[in-house]
């Protein structure tokens, strides 16, 4: 569907009609819902035969193995896998049928960490983080900790999904939240009309509402950044050029402004891996990632400055390792035992999915790194 339908492969799921929705891999009992099955694939095939080099060997050649963390800058907290969308590329395998939601108890443990961390950025993600019933309480409490950059990754359509979310732009503004939203593409007038009242229209409306309260305006302190990631088996283009195209089209067609565009590479795990295999693109995609390997990007991969925390409080090197079930290689593995000094003294766990973060200009939750 992604390929046939083109740029917009997002499927919007209404809360009320789960039946019509695409289900998560987990709900479909797909074997890829098992993270070790995914690791078998990433370690096998063209890597096991030596056709392509292991990531370990590539970074060993530049003296970066084992990969070690630098100063912790970003705490990324995944408050749950529930989402109103079921995006085909989703590495979280999020969806309305996912019930993994962070409890207030775990949130309290996170708050203790947020109040004491040396990190300057707090990054809330999901699923749709707003769907966690304690989301607003958590944001209010976390905002009090006075962390410098407080990010919420919002999928935009959630703001229009239900009346109870309509005031989110005001809520974000009140707590000086930095909004980072996924926006798979801009489309011009004609295409948009054919698609009707889908994800695109809802996203456009949400962006206009964010603009209306001051988000994304030039020189505004209310930061609004967009995330672009390819809807298919190809790598993102040049981030600057894409940003230019997005800005021009969104301004001309919808009078929307935003600050920066982050071009993010899809990593071959979860639903995106399932898509790559089903569409017979897996090998070509891995070739493309390995060919685009950029040693300069290794230096700043996000796992070197980020800790990822799952809905149930476990600690990971990144959101991707979280989805693969690869907990940090440290004595400290859970938020309840959090110790920044101990954590900073660990080896980062890698596999072949890591090529996704070192391709071209590199890729991270903050866009390119090289």
């Amino acid at each position: 569907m992604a390929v046939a339908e083109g740029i917009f492969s997002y499927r919007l799921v209404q809360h009320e009609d789960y039946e019509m929705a695409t289900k998560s891999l987990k709900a479909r009992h797909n074997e890829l819902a098992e993270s070790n099955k995914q690791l078998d694939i990433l370690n096998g095939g063209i890597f096991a035969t030596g056709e392509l080099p292991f990531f370990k060997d590539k970074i060993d050649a530049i003296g970066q193995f084992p990969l070690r963390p630098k100063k912790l800058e970003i705490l990324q907290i995944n408050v749950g896998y529930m989402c109103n969308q079921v995006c085909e590329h989703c590495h979280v395998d999020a969806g309305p049928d996912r019930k993994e939601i962070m409890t207030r108890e775990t949130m309290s443990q996170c708050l203790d960490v947020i109040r004491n961390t040396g990190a300057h950025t707090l990054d809330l993600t999901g699923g749709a983080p707003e769907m966690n019933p304690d989301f607003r309480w958590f944001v209010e409490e976390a905002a009090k900790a006075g962390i410098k950059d407080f990010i919420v990754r919002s999928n935009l359509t959630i703001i229009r999904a239900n009346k109870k979310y309509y005031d989110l732009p005001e809520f974000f503004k009140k707590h000086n939240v930095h909004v980072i939203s996924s926006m798979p593409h801009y489309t011009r007038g004609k295409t948009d009309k054919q698609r009707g009242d889908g994800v695109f229209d809802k996203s456009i409306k949400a962006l206009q509402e964010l603009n209306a309260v001051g988000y994304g305006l030039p020189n505004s302190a209310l930061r609004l950044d967009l995330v672009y990631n390819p809807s298919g088996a190809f790598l993102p283009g040049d981030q600057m050029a894409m940003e230019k195209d997005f800005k021009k089209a969104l301004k001309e067609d919808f009078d929307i402004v935003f600050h920066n565009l982050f071009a993010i590479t899809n990593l071959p795990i979860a639903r995106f891996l399932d898509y790559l295999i089903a569409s017979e693109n897996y090998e070509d995609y891995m070739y493309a990632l390995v060919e685009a390997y950029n040693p300069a990007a290794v230096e700043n991969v996000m796992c070197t400055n980020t800790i990822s925390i799952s809905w149930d409080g476990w600690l990971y090197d990144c959101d991707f390792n979280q989805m693969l079930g690869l907990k940090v290689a440290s004595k400290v593995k859970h938020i309840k035992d959090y110790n920044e000094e101990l954590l900073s003294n660990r080896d980062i766990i890698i596999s072949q999915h890591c090529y996704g973060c070192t391709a071209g200009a590199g890729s991270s939750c903050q866009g390119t790194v090289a």
Partner: protein
Amino acid sequence: MANSYYDSADLRKFGKITEWSEELGTKFFDYYGKVFEEGALSAREKSLIALAVSHVVKCPYCIDAYTKDGLQKGITKEEMMEAVHAGAAIESGATLVHGVQMMNKYDKLSM
């Protein structure tokens, strides 16, 4: 040997042509890379030109490569198809303009 003249997996081996002629191969890829850089024409515009030409020269490798390149650059399928038509129109025009030669010859030979 493969039993087909074209194998899509050969595209990713393209770089290997340098192994049998280092100097010429390298010169070609340097030139190629330079041509598609941002210049008086944007990299995006050049990608669409390359896609149109790929169809005119009927190179399956090039079509695969520049469809993917277009997707990476955020080029829409409508833009891609218009580029292909631009190439096709020139190609059919090149055929049809020879119709004038046919008409000239016909007239010359006819009483």
